[in-house]
């Protein structure tokens, strides 16, 4: 699905990673770990094509017509002056039974008319995660997705990731928090 070949990146002559190579195959969960400033977010951005690498390249293989990625970074991408429902509309998400169930599981269904600015950090995070959960992307990339989530929401996200991988799709996450899922690890501190 994605092949990372000899990727190198440095900031102000400080090497973040050097000659990094790995592949993400279908049905695989990859966890990128490393200390603060080790380049986890940068690696995600290089894989997405937002940041160009200093050296190396990323090969992507997707079937025609498939929705390739869904990405959630440190910033949620939510409009705080709009309601939860309006934010879902901006994300092209329809309120069908299946999606309503996910929103209900995330305790967001009762907050549909609430302005996002009035929600807590955790609720905003859950809304942003709902966009990823409800999308049909082949590969999802999440940057510290468990930060700000309560135990129930963390378990729900783990359950979603498990189901996502089981259907042959893939995920890449960066996380400091331990997760209860089978994953391959890429440590940037090595």
């Amino acid at each position: 699905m994605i092949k990372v070949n000899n990727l190198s990146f440095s900031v102000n002559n400080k090497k973040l990673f050097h000659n990094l190579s790995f592949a993400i195959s279908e049905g695989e969960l990859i966890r990128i770990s490393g200390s603060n400033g080790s380049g986890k977010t940068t690696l995600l951005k290089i894989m997405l094509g937002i940041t160009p690498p200093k050296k190396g390249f990323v090969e992507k293989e997707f079937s025609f017509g498939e929705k390739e990625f869904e990405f959630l970074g440190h910033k949620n991408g939510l409009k705080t002056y709009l309601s939860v429902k309006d934010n879902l509309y901006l994300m092209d998400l329809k309120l069908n039974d299946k999606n309503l169930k996910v929103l209900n599981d995330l305790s967001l269904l009762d907050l549909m008319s609430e302005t996002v600015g009035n929600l807590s950090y955790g609720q905003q995070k859950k809304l942003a995660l709902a966009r990823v959960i409800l999308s049909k992307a082949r590969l999802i990339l999440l940057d510290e997705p468990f930060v700000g989530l309560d135990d129930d929401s963390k378990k729900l996200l783990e359950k979603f990731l498990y189901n996502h991988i089981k259907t042959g799709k893939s995920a890449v996450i960066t996380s400091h928090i331990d997760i209860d899922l089978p994953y391959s690890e890429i440590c940037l501190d090595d």
Partner: protein
Amino acid sequence: MIRLFFKELFKMVRQLRSWLGPLSVFVLILVAFPLTQDIDTKFSHQTTFSFLWIISLLVIMLSTEKVFLEDFDDGSMEQHLLKPYNFSDYVSAKVTSSFLLIGIPLSCMSWLFLQSAVAMTNLNLVSLLSFLLSNFIFINFCFFGNAVSLKRGSLLGLLIITPLLFPVLIILGKMLSAALLGLDYSNFLLLLLGCSLISGPLMPFVISYILKIHLE
């Protein structure tokens, strides 16, 4: 593209301060300007036009001040970059929304003020057209300035684009002079139309490229 435009329009409509605020400032200035004059003062055509162009430019600068900053700060710009449509479409949708909600109302209000201040029955259509075209160009350049100075404050952007807009203001002034002297002003109007036709499709590509650099 149309769907994207409606989404940007929806966001802008819901954020009243981004367009209703600057339009209110414009109205207040239009009200305040005659109050500084004697009651029997006759406004000259040249002064009134210049006043309206400059004040329109300032109001557009004010309204587009944070046009990209909000999306950049909340992370939605990053997400637009990953969507299947062209990133320049996102910029075009923003420009079009701003022109609809700010450019067109400003042009209409300028034209109405012009009618009340100086009667120009022979130049009705041309004056409206000049306001529409100049405001469209101003919006495109203000977007460009804000994209350039995204992380460094809007003042830098304004300092960059203001000299770039001098030729447009000169063309507008020359067009008016020609019209008042009864000369053929169509060349100047065509020049203005040409500027709009070039900046309209070209600016979104330039701006999207600049924004991509910021996102890196």
